[in-house]
């Protein structure tokens, strides 16, 4: 064992702290659970690993709780570091891996539980939401371990699982992810948990998830409106409009609310404000208060280099008078978009509020099919200001402000929660829905 005079840089400490706090806010850790690790190149040219200390509170990390390890040899930090350090070290040895993270992704863990006699190999997790399928793949391995925490068996299998998948599930425990950066690792954890939340919520609504999975596996394009943009790792610090101080503040406020209110997983979704010639665009709308995401000023006219997400914003602006747009991947809405009323053959084409405020704020929330044409999409946005696209997230528009447009997905979440809660209790939603919703 060698002893080195490690020095923790302010930037990396801030990142660990911010992601630690954010993971608590997003409820994918308990007070002391999980761990995060990154591989960095030291001044001497050697790789080293920074990993959270065992038993540390991820929501309040001290500098002393970031442990330094050599990537190739064990340093004294090993004795303080996470009990799952061996797993992280092996994950970080995978080519291209720069960070790893373990989190208690409860929604995904619950969605992958089974009651089979053990030992048994659990079924893979099949995401039914576009975010999950884009970023996790069409399946995620789930493994049962006799000792499901820090065991040699885990150290042997999990890195193998992650060689060709970004995430893997330890049944009843949580998720490990492999990523290029710690920010991406957190992103993947959030997406994974979100995928679990969609499945769990769909089951609460008596959606036949297994049948749906088969349909999606057979023909993904028919069930997913489109796949989200690829995740980028090198542009989070970018802000193209620092001089627009008032608007900037609105972006940060709205972004924090999207994240904290779980309207879209970390660094997913998008939002924008249009000017006359420009669009101020946040391609990663969900941003915790102390974790920045890119903020772009782009020409309003379409460009060949536009991503699918950005192109959708520009299309809406080109065809309407709206000034603000928000797109969120709201798990409750995604799950609800597959809802069938008991006895109905067809999936419902609307979400009807049954709560007091939702009832008066919204007549209905339209649910559009994945292959909705542009004209119908725009018309429904005009009429209702917010729509759910099955396999495409929640789209909302506003005439004036980001705050205005933020209100819509936030309301949709509450509307869905009330309906799901009522349905779980065996209440008859049709009886609860206002008559006026029939004329929509």
């Amino acid at each position, binding site marked *: 064992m060698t002893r080195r005079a490690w020095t923790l840089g302010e930037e990396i400490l801030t990142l660990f702290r911010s992601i630690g706090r954010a993971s608590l806010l997003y409820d994918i850790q308990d007070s002391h659970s999980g761990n995060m690790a990154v591989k960095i190149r030291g001044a001497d040219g050697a790789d080293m690993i920074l990993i959270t200390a065992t038993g540390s509170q991820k929501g309040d990390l001290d500098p002393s709780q970031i442990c330094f390890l050599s990537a190739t040899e064990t340093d004294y930090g090993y004795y303080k570091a996470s009990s799952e350090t061996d797993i992280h070290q092996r994950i970080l040895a995978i080519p291209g891996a720069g960070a790893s993270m373990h989190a208690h992704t409860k929604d995904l863990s619950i969605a992958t539980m089974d009651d089979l006699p053990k030992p048994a190999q659990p079924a893979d997790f099949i995401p039914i939401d576009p975010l999950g399928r884009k970023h996790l793949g069409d399946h995620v391995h789930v493994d049962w371990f006799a000792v499901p925490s820090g065991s040699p068996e885990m150290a042997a299998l999990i890195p193998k699982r992650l060689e060709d998948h970004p995430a893997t599930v330890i049944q009843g425990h949580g998720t490990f992810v492999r990523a290029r950066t710690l920010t991406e690792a957190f992103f993947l954890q959030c997406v994974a948990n979100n995928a679990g939340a969609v499945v769990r919520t769909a089951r609460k609504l008596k959606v036949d998830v297994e049948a749906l999975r088969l349909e999606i596996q057979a023909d993904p394009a028919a069930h997913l409106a489109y796949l989200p943009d690829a995740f980028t790792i090198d542009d989070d610090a970018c802000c193209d409009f620092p001089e*627009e101080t*008032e*608007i900037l503040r*609105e972006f940060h406020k709205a972004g924090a609310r999207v994240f904290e209110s779980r309207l879209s997983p970390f660094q997913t979704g998008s939002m924008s*404000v*249009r*000017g*006359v*010639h*420009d669009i*101020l665009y946040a391609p990663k709308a969900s941003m915790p208060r102390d974790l920045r995401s890119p903020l772009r000023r782009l020409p309003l006219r379409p460009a060949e280099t536009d991503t699918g997400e950005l192109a959708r914003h520009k299309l809406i602006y080109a065809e*309407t*008078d709206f*000034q603000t747009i928000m797109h969120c991947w709201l798990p409750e809405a995604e799950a609800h978009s597959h809802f069938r009323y008991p006895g109905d053959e067809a999936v419902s084409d609307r979400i009807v509020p049954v709560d007091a405020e939702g009832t*008066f*704020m919204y*007549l209905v929330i339209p649910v559009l099919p994945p292959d909705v044409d542009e004209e119908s999409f*725009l*018309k429904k946005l*005009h*009429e*209702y*200001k917010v729509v759910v696209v099955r396999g495409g997230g929640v789209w909302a528009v*506003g*005439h*004036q*402000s980001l*705050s*205005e447009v*933020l*209100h819509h997905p936030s309301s949709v979440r509450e509307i869905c929660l009330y309906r799901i809660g009522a349905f779980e209790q065996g209440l008859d939603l049709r009886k609860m829905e*206002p*008559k*006026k*919703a*029939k*004329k929509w």
Partner: protein
Amino acid sequence: MSAAPFGFFGKIIEIDLTGGDARVLPLDTALVADYLGGRGLATRLFYDAVDPQCDPLGPDNVVVIAASPLIGTTAPTSARGHMVFKSPLTGVIGTSNSGGGWGHTFKSAGYDALVIKGKADSPVWIDIAPGKIEVLPAHHLWGQDIHATNDELTSGFEAGSRPRALCIGPGGENLVLYAVVGNDKNRVYGRCGGGAVWGSKNLKAIRVQGKEKIQIHDKERYQSGYDQALYLLRQAPVTKRLMRELGTAGLVELINVINMLPHRNFQDCTHRPEDLERMSGETIAKTILEKAAGCYLCPIGCQRHTRIDGDDGSTQRGEGPEYETVVLMGPDCGIYDLAAITTANYRCNELGIDTISFGGTVACAMELGERGLLGAEKEGGLDLRFGAAAELEKLAVDTAHRRGAGALLAEGSYRLAERCGRADLSMTVKKLELPAYDPRASFTQALGYMTSPSGACHLRGGYAVSLAFFGGTKEIPRFSLLQSPIAIRNMQNTGILQDSLGVCRFTGYAFGSDPWSRMLTGVTGMDFSVFRLEEIENRVASLERLFNVEAGATAADDALPPRFAETPIVVAGEEKMVSEQAQERMRRDYYSVRGWDSEGRPTRALLEDLAIAPRAGRAS
């Protein structure tokens, strides 16, 4: 031409005062589909009927008043009428809206719109009821104020069949360029000088009476919009509490908080709190308020019925003062005397002059006086100083009668200041006096004043102050050059919709177009989806602009007075003004979002895209 849709009677009255002829014309359903009612319909009928180059006070000017399909239903606040004419004050479109009950009763007479042309040889009034349209001599009414005229024409009827009268006072008769047309005594078509146009036509009053009912196509759809609208009106703090408890004057201290409350002809926005407290909505409620009330079908109830007890034991009763009146006849004139403002307000209401333009003109005269710029004007008795509260009431009376100094004030602040060689001291856009929100405290409001079709009007230009302070979820940055053009376009469009529906601007504090869309579609059975409503809003905005361009307005008219670009005010510790460059950028961007060319002219392609047909009877 097809049968009248639900929500309309399908009839337009056209009266030519020159010959005293009246005829009833069918209302083209296509016009309703494209222009809705109220402001939209009136603007189209006006555009088709008038020569934009006409003398606003000549016989060729045309006055159009239109109702909307919601009038006659239970839709909240839906009793407002809208009047369009060429303004004698501004030379561009005069477009003005009023509460009260006249609009509802006019519709109940079985008509959708009224077009008035020509000029009577001598004073006349018009009597309208189902099956009856008469042009009658008005010698006995000429010279009477609005209250007396209203009483004269509406008394003596059985309860339930009482008619309503729309009339002018001496202000209109004497062609004060900002004279109003009033109904229910104190509710007025206030801005742009419609009263003077009536006066120029020798038209004193229009009485309406009727009990005709409109048919609703789909009551369930209508009801769903109605329920939502009413619920939201009862939720929003402004509509459920502020306006009822404090009236619009409840804004005095709130607008001061955001440094928008003008002082001494907009020289600054600095006031002593104790001064404002003497004239706040709270003080009005505690001291002079007798009761709050609302217009027909209004659940908001912002009307202030007040009384002033004189030192000599006398008592005066009336309505007001409203926020704009309090500020423009108050702090903007350096006056913080509630009794003086209120009594002057009473006189303005009775005699029929706009309190905003009157206050703004007096403030301008005061600054000219303090700067020693009044020469020959002094000989007319005009020699004012800021704070001259004792002069206010007399100035209002003299202005309405064009007596002494009043003859100069009757021309508005721009002509007065120009006469003194300092047009820059007139706080106007297109010669219309600014309302009581300093544009330096909100770029959005600034652009609204600049681009309002009728000149500096917060109601036609976009009520941006609601976004600056009461926007709720819609609150936007106040100093964003990027957001202001689209924000104000959208605010203006909301105003066009409300004016075309015959509903109150304050409903916008509670909800947008969605409930209206359902009510309107329910009433008419026509496609008035939000998308269609936005088309109509944009169509009306460009038609108004087209008229203004044809009347001679240019991009140079879309500008604030130099003071706002040269002299900063302090907002939240920072100096703020609307520089020429900022104005230029916002103006350019605004034209662009409207689809107008760089000079602010609607392009031929836009007119085709919006299906704005050439003036009736004229090739494009």
